[in-house]
């Protein structure tokens, strides 16, 4: 193999390497995830900063940094980062045809990451949560944005024939829940609260507290005189991540298609040796099940799931997988077509130069990697618990429990101040090792001492 074909094959292989990344995002971010779940927030932060300095995916890394900041007791920093990431992702939300075209020559990693639909919705939910544990001034606006975002994502996917692949998406019941508890606190807009709690019971029918909230908003009051309400919000477990998976049936079908076309055109095509790779959502929630809350000796209750992030991501993947596969197949067709075009142009049908180009084509196809970019520090579940408590400062005992009700890690005590007729919010992050970072409360953002942590 000499001359033009050799140079051409070399160029194609070089282009393939240029057009695709090296390690996938999730492989690089796995240490961050591990450090975070083990409660080593400083290490998680250091790793994210190091990754950001390498110049990759600023907005995506900002989301992970925001989760670290929230767990570390810095809700204002977290909110600022989430807002910045939201605006950044919104700017690139609309698909760029140029990028899509360019990605046909490489892989999906060459497209700017605009966030998965579930991430864009949850981003706003996390904004509401991080605002609630501060002054809560913007929490209502953020919760409205969650609902609007969900609606607009589904509406934008409507096809002219009336079908909508995103209609099957799971809705985030946390959004109407937050809106419900905020409207209830006005002591005036009980109709809004009831309307939102009705949505909660519809979207998350297995949320057992739902009917009680609805009944209270429909005919009761926020709390008895001399009492206020503590809302415990728990971010539990490890959220979903993306891993590279090989689509064997599609790859096998393409291989057969190669053979048929090669025979018909009397010219070889690069065989589909490299499998089609797509990202697959992997749910790895861990063993943390719930958070038990006690007031003094009284076991007040356990948090209950209002939104399952992993389930939401899996349902989204199920709805959108055919589209992802279609894009992967089109990419292969483009690459094979390019090789075929070059061969036609050079008048090559068989022989060594043709085989060299096929080899280059195979290398080009093999260089594709699945796009595993995702928000890696989301929780597996968002859980809530509502407690009506007498006015005053009360110590709440918090314990992470596994699915069998056994404690995980050390329990902690957190003081909360309950105000008459008002809501107080307490946010915790729970993992297999117990609590990650420190609890945050809207009544006081003072730091508390955690077991095993230097003062």
């Amino acid at each position: 193999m000499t001359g033009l074909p050799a140079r051409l094959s070399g160029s194609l292989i070089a282009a393939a390497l240029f057009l695709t990344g090296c390690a996938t995002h999730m492989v690089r971010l796995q240490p961050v995830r591990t450090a975070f779940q083990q409660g080593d927030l400083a290490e998680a932060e250091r790793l994210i900063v190091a990754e950001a300095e390498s110049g990759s995916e600023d907005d995506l890394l900002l989301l992970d940094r925001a989760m670290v900041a929230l767990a570390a007791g810095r809700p204002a920093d977290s909110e600022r980062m989430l807002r910045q990431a939201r605006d950044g992702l919104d700017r690139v939300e609309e698909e760029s045809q140029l990028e899509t075209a360019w990605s046909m020559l490489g892989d999906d990693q060459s497209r700017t990451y605009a966030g998965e639909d579930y991430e864009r919705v949850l981003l706003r939910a996390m904004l509401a949560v991080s605002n609630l544990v501060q002054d809560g001034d913007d929490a209502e606006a953020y919760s409205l944005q969650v609902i609007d975002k969900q609606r607009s994502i589904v509406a934008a996917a409507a096809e002219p024939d009336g079908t909508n692949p995103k209609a099957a998406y799971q809705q985030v019941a946390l959004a109407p829940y937050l809106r419900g508890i905020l409207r209830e606190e006005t002591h005036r807009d009980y109709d809004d609260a009831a309307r939102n709690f009705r949505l909660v019971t519809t979207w998350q029918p297995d949320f057992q507290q739902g009917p009680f909230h609805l009944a209270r908003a429909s005919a009761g009051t926020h709390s008895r005189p001399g009492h206020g309400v503590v809302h415990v919000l728990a971010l539990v477990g490890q959220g979903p991540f993306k891993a590279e998976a090989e689509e064997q049936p599609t790859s096998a079908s393409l291989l057969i298609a190669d053979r048929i076309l090669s025979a018909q055109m009397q010219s070889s095509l690069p065989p589909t040796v490299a499998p089609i790779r797509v990202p697959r959502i992997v749910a790895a929630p861990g063993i943390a099940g719930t958070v038990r809350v006690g007031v003094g000796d009284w076991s007040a209750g356990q948090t209950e799931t209002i939104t399952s992030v992993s389930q939401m991501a899996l349902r989204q993947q199920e709805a959108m997988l055919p589209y992802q596969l279609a894009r992967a197949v089109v990419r292969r067709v483009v690459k094979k077509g390019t090789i075929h075009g070059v061969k036609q142009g050079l008048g090559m049908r068989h022989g060594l130069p043709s085989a060299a180009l096929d080899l280059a084509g195979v290398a080009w196809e093999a260089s594709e990697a699945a796009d595993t970019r995702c928000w890696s520090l989301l929780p597996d579940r968002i859980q809530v618990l509502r407690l009506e408590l007498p006015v005053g400062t009360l110590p709440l005992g918090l314990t992470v429990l596994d699915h069998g009700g056994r404690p995980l890690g050390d329990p902690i005590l957190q003081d909360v101040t309950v105000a008459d007729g008002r809501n107080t919010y307490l946010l915790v992050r729970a993992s297999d090792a117990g609590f990650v970072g420190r609890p945050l409360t809207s009544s006081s953002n003072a730091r508390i001492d955690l077991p095993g942590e230097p003062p």
Partner: protein
Amino acid sequence: MGRVDRPIRMDRRSFFLRGIVQLPLPLLALGAAGCRSMQFARLMTPGEEGMIGSHQAGQETFTPLVNEAVAKLLARHAESAVQQVSAVDGAESMPPPMRRVCFVGVENKSAEEIGDFKEQIYQAIDARILESQVFQSVNRRFVDAGLRDTRLRPDQLLVPQQMRTFADHMEQQGQPIDYLLYATITSGTTQQNRDYQRDYLLTLELVEVGTGNYDKQSAELSKGYHHSRLGRWRAAHSHSP
């Protein structure tokens, strides 16, 4: 052969170039046609026609509803205030003291989630009442505090005993009230295949504290939602002569 070779080499080059550009070029052309767009904003000039909500009610619905309903209510009570003044015999007629209205809130009973419009509607009604000089409106923060302190729901205030409890509490706080004002948004939907018409009704109810007598004024607006431009055009021209 030599004569044949040369044109073939030429063909190969042209074919090669064509082959190289054949596939990527349409892709790039497609791309050039569809770069990612940006979001822009502008200030709308006063009097400029606002946007019309394509899926639910927006300012085009609520603004005229509020304007009409509040104007009707104020007009009726402005008349009675004038009559009261002219009925006074003798020397100088003094204007009666302005009656104090406690605007309890806006209740949404329509088929739509009105989102951030609820606060907007409350503030618009409250501001208009305050400007009217017919009524004096109780500051909303006092109303909210009153509801929180008494743990009464807005709908419970119409029960005579609870109305008295609330009125007494407001008086103790230095905010006596003569009337309770409620605003309610309702809707009715008429479906015609994939198009539908929604009638929005804003009702203002003014309840006199003590007697329980009430006045009621409404404003109505209908809006058509169409699945296509053609549907909208047909509906707009079906009644023209």
